[in-house]
């Protein structure tokens, strides 16, 4: 009994239990990724059989096959990767600028229909995206843009301004006194946005960039509808899905795993790079302006 009364013992006991629970959750969470990684290097080909959880032999072959297929096929991963990268870069730049500009306008400027516009944006945001997809497709077709990468950039970036709520919330926390001080010094609204607000909002800028960049890598339905059978303009999401359709599954399963790993690389790199600014931004925001 004495044992349980000892504070030290109770603390150790509690911590052990908590760490065991956290450990189990961690394993559950991380195991699909490890599985994906390991099996993308697995040497004995084909789809996984139930009883081979851990591969025995490893090879780099699937990655080579992914970028330089030895068989005659319409799967062209390097091309899809570049497509996605280009689309991601363009839509990232355009949508980041438009989101931040819209947020700034709603946060700082006062004009007649401000409230109404915000409400409309809110209501439009309530419709699930895939409801409008067919309509988007036919509109793009009328413009002659179906099966075209420009169409993807347009779709990903043009509506982005509607997602202003989070960054507007952030801008609202920056004291208006700063704006006023700048105005007294002769700054225009435009100058305030670029020189005062933006440098103070690094975390939200980084957040916007990240979400805008990741979008094209993960979007499947819209991209598939727009691209149809134009294999050359596919993005990685459609391409990877194609690798695991019944036509390709038995041959391409491990290349599919390898592809999934490769797709994670640019996003991870961007995140690591941005992480630094993200932290910096947070601490800078904490210093009294």
């Amino acid at each position, binding site marked *: 009994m004495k044992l349980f009364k000892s504070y030290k013992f109770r603390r150790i006991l509690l911590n052990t239990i908590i760490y065991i629970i956290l450990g189990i959750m961690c394993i559950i969470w991380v195991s699909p990724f490890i599985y994906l990684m390991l099996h993308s290097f697995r040497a004995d080909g*084909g789809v996984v*059989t139930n*009883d081979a959880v851990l591969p025995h032999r490893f090879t780099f072959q699937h990655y080579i096959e992914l970028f330089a297929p030895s068989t005659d096929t319409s*799967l062209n991963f390097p091309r899809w990767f570049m497509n996605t990268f280009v689309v991601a870069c363009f839509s990232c730049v355009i949508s980041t600028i438009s989101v931040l500009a819209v947020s700034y306008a709603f946060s700082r400027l006062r004009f007649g229909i401000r409230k109404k516009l915000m409400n409309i944006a809110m209501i439009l945001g309530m419709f699930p995206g895939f409801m409008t997809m067919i309509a988007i497709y036919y509109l793009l077709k*009328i413009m*002659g843009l179906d099966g075209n990468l420009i169409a993807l950039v347009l779709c990903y970036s043009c509506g982005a301004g509607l997602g202003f709520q989070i960054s507007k919330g952030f801008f609202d926390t920056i004291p208006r006194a700063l704006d006023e001080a700048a105005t007294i010094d002769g700054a225009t609204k435009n100058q305030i946005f670029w020189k005062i607000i933006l440098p103070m909002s690094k975390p939200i800028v980084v957040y916007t960039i990240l979400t805008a960049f990741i979008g094209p890598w993960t979007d499947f339905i819209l991209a598939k509808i727009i691209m*149809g059978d134009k*294999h050359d303009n596919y993005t990685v999401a459609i391409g990877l899905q194609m690798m695991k359709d019944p036509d390709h599954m038995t041959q391409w399963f491990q290349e599919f795993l390898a592809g999934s790993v490769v797709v994670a690389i640019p996003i991870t790199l961007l995140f690591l790079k941005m992480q630094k600014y993200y932290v910096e931004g947070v601490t800078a925001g904490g210093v009294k302006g």
Partner: protein
Amino acid sequence: MKKVLAILLAGMMTATAFAGCGGGSSSSTDSNADSKTESKADDASKGDDGSKAEADMDPSWADESLFGGETDITLKVWAPDKAVSLTKEQVEAFKKHYSNIKFKSIEVVAQGESDAATQIMNDPEKAADVFGFPSDQLDKLIATKVLSPVAQGFVNTIKANNAQKTIDAVTEGDKLYAFPETNDNGYYLVYDNTVVTDEDAKTLEGVLAACKAKNKQFILDSGNGFYSCMFAFTGGALIDGFEADGVTQKFVEYNEDEVIDTLMAFAKLMKDYKNTYSSQDTANISSSFKNGKAGAGVDGTWNSQADKDALGDKFGAAKLPTINVGGTDKQIISMFGYKYIGVNSYTKFPRSAQILAYYLTGEEAQTQRAQKLGWGPSNTKAQEAVKDDPIIQAVSAQSENAVAQVKIAGTFWTPMGTLGSELYKDSWKPEDRNATKTLFDKIISNVKDE
């Protein structure tokens, strides 16, 4: 800085706007052309009423005059990835043969057959003019009218040259809706002939015993309705298209006791050979052969190449085995489909598309596919040419004992899958007749969506 940016952005906007306008005008002319071709498509399907004598026609080649003056022909063909390069060769041969006709381009694009119908219906105008698809998508394609019926001039030749079953499945009323391409879209028994002898392969009991003796698995995807419908079919509960309402699955008259007996026999084998009989996705079969875990499996023709590569000299193929039900050996009845090549009714060159489809399903093209890709032909003469291939033999033997995969209700697959997975469950008691009957009744009423 910001001025440059503003100009840049504005420039981009205008650029896209212009891009839009440019495209717009061209696509509007497209749609004009469309309305014109609609009527032409009607010509091709109705007007040709046997006008061009099919009697003295070389079976693979149509008469040049059938092109009906179409020129600058642009067509798109959908073929599965594996068949793309062969199809390209065939298209070249096609163009060469009709050297008097002016072709602008015939493009061959990879498109899996399994979702061809979905892709077509997304936007028929942008889809392929000539496309391959399996028989289960027929009713969808016919109902949505994207499939243009075979021109009358070809009908008799096609009927004379292809297996009767493939013709029956695609005939509705007096119209033939697509060109039969293969007679092989089903599954059969694949085995490692060092584990299972050809004699063992005749009965399911023999296959399982042989696998058990060598400590290998027998793989059958019992939770998937496409395969597990064989349990009900073998018992005699066969399907026969739709009821009069056009949506409810219709069953033939069957003896319920017989079905229950058969289901119990299957369940008993699953129990008796508990660690041998394994229900896994068919995609696992080839890799299990490769690592020596499996001795036999029921696999589809589309995985034949992978299985052959995995087994090499040990590859064995046969029709599905028999199962012993109350003393008599009953042949296992499977689901079996065919593949067709269809012509999109939105095509701008209906006559050329028909002729190309006709050539691509002709004797010569089917023989090439059979030899290079192992696709079982529907053309009777092409069947002769490849009759020694063990897979094609196995598949065509199984096709005699199969239900055609046409007019299948959407509510069919899931309950049938449940039937298989219930029987396969560890907790299932194979000798419990009442439970089997309750399960079967529930499955049937679910299929009929009552």
